[in-house]
């Protein structure tokens, strides 16, 4: 077992972990943050995408012990004071989710894409979300939502 400390959604946690524990299971099973979903076992689907020190990462590709000292944001940490984050709001406004299972990862990936200034066109959004699979929406409305959220963020900054 190894002891690590990490900050998740602004709260600091000290944890004793088995070295083999994946970050996604640390979040889900140790911290009870079940919003981050597991959709595959090959790092293909992106359902488990979170922000690690501000950059999107698939939480199934990281061991818990690798993120010692990191700041992590999960889907639960996005809305503030009962207000949806602009990306969450755009997903709602444009029907960019159906079953909602890929949604937390898709939203986190989109947040990262926008924050890094990479959501510059529909093609860029499509390329930028390549690591996140959705089986319900055909991505059409996801692209619309991310485009709109990026435009809103552009106006705000």
């Amino acid at each position, binding site marked *: 077992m190894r002891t690590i400390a990490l900050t998740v959604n602004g709260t600091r946690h000290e944890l004793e972990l088995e070295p083999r524990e994946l970050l996604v299971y640390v979040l*889900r099973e140790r911290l009870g943050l079940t919003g981050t979903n597991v959709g595959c076992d090959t790092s293909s*689907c992106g359902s488990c995408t979170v922000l690690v020190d501000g950059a999107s990462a698939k939480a199934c590709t990281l061991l818990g012990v690798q993120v010692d000292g990191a700041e992590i944001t999960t889907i639960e940490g996005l809305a503030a004071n009962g207000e949806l984050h602009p990306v969450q709001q755009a997903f709602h406004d444009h029907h960019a989710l159906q079953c909602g299972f890929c949604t937390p990862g898709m939203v986190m990936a989109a947040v990262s894409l926008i924050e890094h200034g990479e959501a510059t066109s529909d093609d860029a959004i499509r390329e930028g*979300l390549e690591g996140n699979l959705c089986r319900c929406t055909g991505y059409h409305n996801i692209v619309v939502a991310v485009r709109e959220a990026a435009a809103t963020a552009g106006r705000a900054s």
Partner: protein
Amino acid sequence: MSATDERASYVGAPVKRREDRSLLTGRGTFVDNMAPAGTLAMVVVRSPYASARVAGISADEAREADGVVAVFTAADLREDWKAAMPCAWPVTEEMKNPPHYPLTDTPRYQGDGVAVVIAESRAQAKDAAELVEVDYEPGEAIVDVAKALEDGATLVHDDLGTNECYVWRLDTDATGQTLEDADVVVTRRYVQPRLIPNAIEPRGMLAVPGPLGDMTLYSATQVPHILRVLVAATLGMHETKLRVVAPDVGGGFGSKLDVYAEELLAVALAARLGRPVKWIEERSENYVSTIHGRDFVTEYTLAATKDGTITHCRAKVIAAMGAYLQLVTPGIPLLGAWIYAGPYAIPNYSVEFRGVFTNTTPTDAYRGAGRPEATYVIERTIDALADELGMDRIELRRKNLISDFPFTLASGLTIDSGDYHASLDRLLEVLDLDGIRSDQARRRENGDVKQLGVGFSTYNEMCGLAPSRILGAIRYAAGGWDQATIRCLPTGSVQVITGTSPHGQSHETAWAQIVADQLGCDIDAVEVLHGDTSISSIGMDTYGSRSLPVGGVALWHAGEKIIEKARQIVAHQWEVSTDDLEFRDGTFSVKGSPDKETTLAAVSFGAWAAHDLPDGMEPTLEATAVYDPPNFSWPAGAHAAVVEVDTETGDARLVRYVAVDDVGAVVNPVIVDGQVHGGITQGISTALYEEAVYDEDGNMLTANLMSYLVPSAAELPSYELERTESRSPTNPLGVKGVGETGTIAAAPAVIGAVVDALSHLGVKDIQMPATPERVWRAIEEAQA
């Protein structure tokens, strides 16, 4: 309709979804998010061989491992099963249905379960599963459906003496003229790849034993009601002791329309151990343990006169069942059996299905189920027939499209409504075919590396499963009705309880729209409950584009009963005839004297207080309706794909996709568009990307998401959607199904476009999926 027409309507408006907030903020209730105290983890030990006999299992080491509570083999649990795993659709009397149990000692496909490990944690169960030593004696496997029917083929089940599961035919001969005597006869053979549904939430379930011999099964299922009936029957439980809950379910596409081994195991073992048992499928495991779709080989023939009037269609289908029959495996081809003439008026009709066992994961419903397979061969062969006749592809379609409704098909069913020409007209208005053709001509002239093609799909389909009498006539075990309850609470809130079970289809929003309009209340006053058999005890669940045209219509009938009872109460209290009362925007008034009025909410309170009700009337305002549809639902439309093909690499890319669909009246246009987007995507993906491949020994080669391409946003275009609307006269809402239309329509349009892009090079057909390698080879072969 109720007299609510003048009020601003929720029905038809793009009401935003009430489902979204919890899903967007990470508070979904997916099965794996639940962990009651003391929950045990289950892991299934699966056969790596497609055919084998288990000579022995040594589980001693596994039983000693950290955290392990129990290990069970097939022999240990034999007494737990009162029946084999259920197949609800014995399509013929002679159909062969080899019994299959949740664990086996004669695995017949890679992934068949041979043992199960129960431990305190998932990691411990997985570790211990590695320690279970199974002594397999591997046998010969057969995976190719056509070879499986040859004399001397390896048998999946020796005792059956054949791999043929059934033969089913539907023949009509209206004109007396034989197909072979027609002016032009075109026959083509098509392979429909085996597909893996890939709902992004894998399957999962949690069985929680209660204190009184009762059990709650939470399952990522589309069919909590059907599951309850069949788990109870298979385990010999009283149905009353089993509650099934479908919490948030992360997509299904048919793959969660089943009764699976793990559901039976979880319930049986939770009962044995007296603790909650959870099983969560891993993705790679999903590729062998969850049903597959398609895997048909079809020979399809169209015959026509010289002027392009189609006189005959004939389909000879070999359909893979997999190793065993799951819930509706043998019935999947039949779901397309009546529409092998497509949207065309073809008088002579012949369909033959042969179900075949192979050493593969069982097939079952995958989005469209039987109808994409039909549409594909029809539309591809229409193109081939047009080429043979030297006719334009659009013109041949136009000439043969059904134009008068209702229309009774040669196959025997009656299409209630449609306007097939309107959809095609609209498609051509939007498409700019002349522009595409001139771009195509320019590229051909220049010898561009990237060539352009356009493909069409004019389709219809039958869904909205289904009239119970017809289901009975075709030997399906259950009915096709659905139930809805509306309960008006004393404060004016309205509870809606539906027998449908959404997993992405937005019923909570759409059903509230229907009820709020009908009862004239605020939409926020309406709560929609579903997916828990302790709340909604009766229902037929969600699949086959049935929820709105069956469950939604049941809801409307329940609403009419509410209004009628309320009308009687008001008439009694005001001492007027019910005929003198008007109901509009949630308010009753006396015709001609609008000053006196009362709201449905007030009547609801009065019905609850019950101080002044007609003699003999039961208190409270609540109504249940069970609706059995008199006909299937008949959506239709016209789609076009524009594809750019790189002739050097074989890479085919969608440039545009235009869809014009007629799904009857639309309750929520945004939700309908979303269903169409998703449906089209799965059809495009079938055409270009997806194929489950086994080697000759039955090893799954496309074993996970690394080797089976589920497309991302980067592979796909945005879509151009249009609608025409012919309301269904079959139901009072005028609605039709929509969930499967895109998948049914899209694949032939895309392949038609790829072939069109390369037709000047001599390419006539390309097998799905049109991967770069297949496209490149098709070009090479055509040029050779």
